[in-house]
């Protein structure tokens, strides 16, 4: 998106985020069998819901994201993770669409998760929190969408784990999803990705301050373990060319190597910074639970081993997007989704965007990616009978 116009001062709305209690009367049945409720859900909205309630877009965040899509983050103060795309006249045009994003179940930014207090025990859930799935996250989102009075979402969009949720939405609630955009995502978590997650979890659990998951009771935080988990994961979000371009073998504030284990290289310093910044805004147990939910995700297995079964009879319009340098969710994963959608003659667009920025490309300024999304949304809006963009 090339230099968006400055936003009017009233945007984004000065809001500390919304929240709603769900499932007090009707608990949410999780895939593991546990009945959960009530559940607090923190969410954020942008734009206005039209009279027909036909212009709602649900944005699903990724593993370590949250619902602050276009607001400054309350802890870090940094702009929202898709703030460049949200606003009047922008890709997610707040003059035309009503955007919703909620913090996922198991999260740590306001939606019920392992760091919250279990009302039954009066203590933080910790590892007593039930193991959740992508499907459970989607169930909770669906309850939120119910509360907002919306029957059908115009679009469900998300990158990475957000894309998994978009796919799950399209599978479970086909009539409620007019269009879906899974970006840099997959219909199942690969062995390699499970392996990376396991490294992260083991790093957390190996930290003595993790205290078998009871660190909140012990007044401790497994910062070192969580930071290492983040460092390892962060490498997978980038690409070799991106790392090379950004850092090469450059040294950090020194002219020569020190023959020690200090952060001699810029890339080391960068990763350490990524790790230490992350622990300020994320809960270690949340990280365990959410990574596990991704690991368990396998849309084919959940549909008799045939991915196409997940979408049989679907009328949802799909736009699948991947990035050339993404080795965490490589194009072949997106292609598998496209093949399954083709097998049921679904309406699908698929673009592999050329980028050297790796998995993180979906969060970055990639004009071709943004043009693709804009075009797809315009096409879908025309079919949904929503007003077209005002072209100047």
């Amino acid at each position, binding site marked *: 998106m090339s230099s968006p116009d400055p936003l009017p001062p009233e945007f984004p709305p000065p809001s500390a985020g919304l929240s709603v209690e769900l499932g007090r009367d009707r608990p949410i049945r999780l895939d593991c069998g546990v009945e959960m409720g009530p559940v607090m859900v923190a969410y954020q909205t942008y734009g206005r819901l039209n009279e027909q309630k036909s212009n709602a877009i649900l944005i699903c965040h990724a593993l370590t994201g949250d619902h602050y899509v276009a607001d400054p983050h309350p802890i870090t103060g940094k702009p929202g993770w898709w703030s460049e795309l949200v606003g009047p006249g922008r890709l997610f045009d707040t003059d035309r669409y009503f955007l919703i994003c909620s913090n996922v179940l198991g999260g740590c930014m306001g939606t019920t998760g392992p760091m919250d207090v279990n009302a039954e025990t009066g203590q933080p859930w910790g590892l007593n929190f039930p193991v959740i799935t992508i499907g459970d996250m989607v169930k909770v989102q669906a309850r939120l969408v119910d509360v907002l009075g919306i029957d059908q979402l115009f679009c469900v969009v998300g990158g990475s784990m957000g894309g998994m949720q978009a796919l799950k939405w399209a599978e479970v609630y086909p009539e409620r999803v007019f269009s879906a955009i899974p970006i840099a995502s997959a219909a199942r978590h690969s062995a390699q990705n499970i392996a990376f997650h396991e490294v992260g979890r083991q790093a957390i659990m190996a930290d003595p301050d993790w205290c078998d998951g009871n660190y909140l009771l012990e007044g401790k935080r497994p910062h070192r373990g969580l930071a290492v988990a983040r460092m390892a994961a962060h490498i997978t979000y980038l690409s070799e060319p991106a790392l090379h371009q950004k850092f090469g073998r450059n040294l950090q504030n020194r002219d020569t190597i020190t023959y020690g284990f200090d952060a001699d290289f810029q890339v080391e310093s960068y990763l350490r910074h990524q790790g230490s910044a992350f622990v300020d805004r994320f809960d270690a147990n949340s990280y365990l639970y959410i990574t596990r939910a991704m690991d368990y995700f396998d849309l084919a297995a959940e549909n008799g081993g045939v991915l196409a079964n997940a979408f049989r009879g679907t009328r949802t319009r799909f736009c699948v997007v991947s990035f050339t340098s993404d080795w965490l969710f490589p194009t072949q994963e997106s292609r598998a989704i*496209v093949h399954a959608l*083709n097998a049921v003659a679904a309406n699908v*667009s698929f673009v592999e965007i050329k980028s050297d920025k790796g998995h993180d490309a979906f969060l970055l300024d990639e004009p071709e990616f943004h043009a693709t999304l804009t075009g797809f949304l315009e096409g879908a809006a025309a079919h949904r009978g929503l007003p077209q963009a005002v072209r100047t």
Partner: protein
Amino acid sequence: MMTIGTGSLRVDLRLIADMVVAGSRVLDVGCGEGALLDWLGTNKGVDGRGIELSMAGVSAAVSHGLSVIQGDADTDLKDYPSGAFDYVILSQTLQATYEPRTVLSHMLRIGRRAIVSFPNFGHWRVRMHLLARGRMPVTDTLAYTWYDTPNIHFCTIRDFLSLCRELGITVERSIPLGRDGKALAIPSCEGIANLFAHQALFVLSRKD
């Protein structure tokens, strides 16, 4: 940016567009930036999908609101269910596929009809070029040298019709085209068309 639906369409594509019944389901294989799909959607209310190999083409088409996937005829047709479309279109692409025979079979499995066009290697200029110069023909419609051509499976009209017979495919219409993609006012009988058509356009259906 390509022309919007109401605008002009390349002559040979217009010829194809005119054959498509309004409101039908169309799969355009090798759709480029989606000009034909766009025209069909706007003017004939067609539910159109496209497959395109080039990233730039797909990106332009999807950015224009068309349902197009990145893929190719050789690998992606097998996924589609039988009878999913009224028409499967392959314009000027058959000669660039690895397995034209398989592609053709899939097209007629997926669609009730297939519309296929290709450059005719039997045109007299092509024959003369090879005969007189002893070198691979480079003409207006076949503008590549042998080492950089994407066209790896050339055929003549006669070759194509022979394959159709072998595969049990019914040729509903055959239209010989000139250099500019316009229909030629010559008899469409095999021998004459094979000699004078620069390109050829066929509407095919299954025998059964």
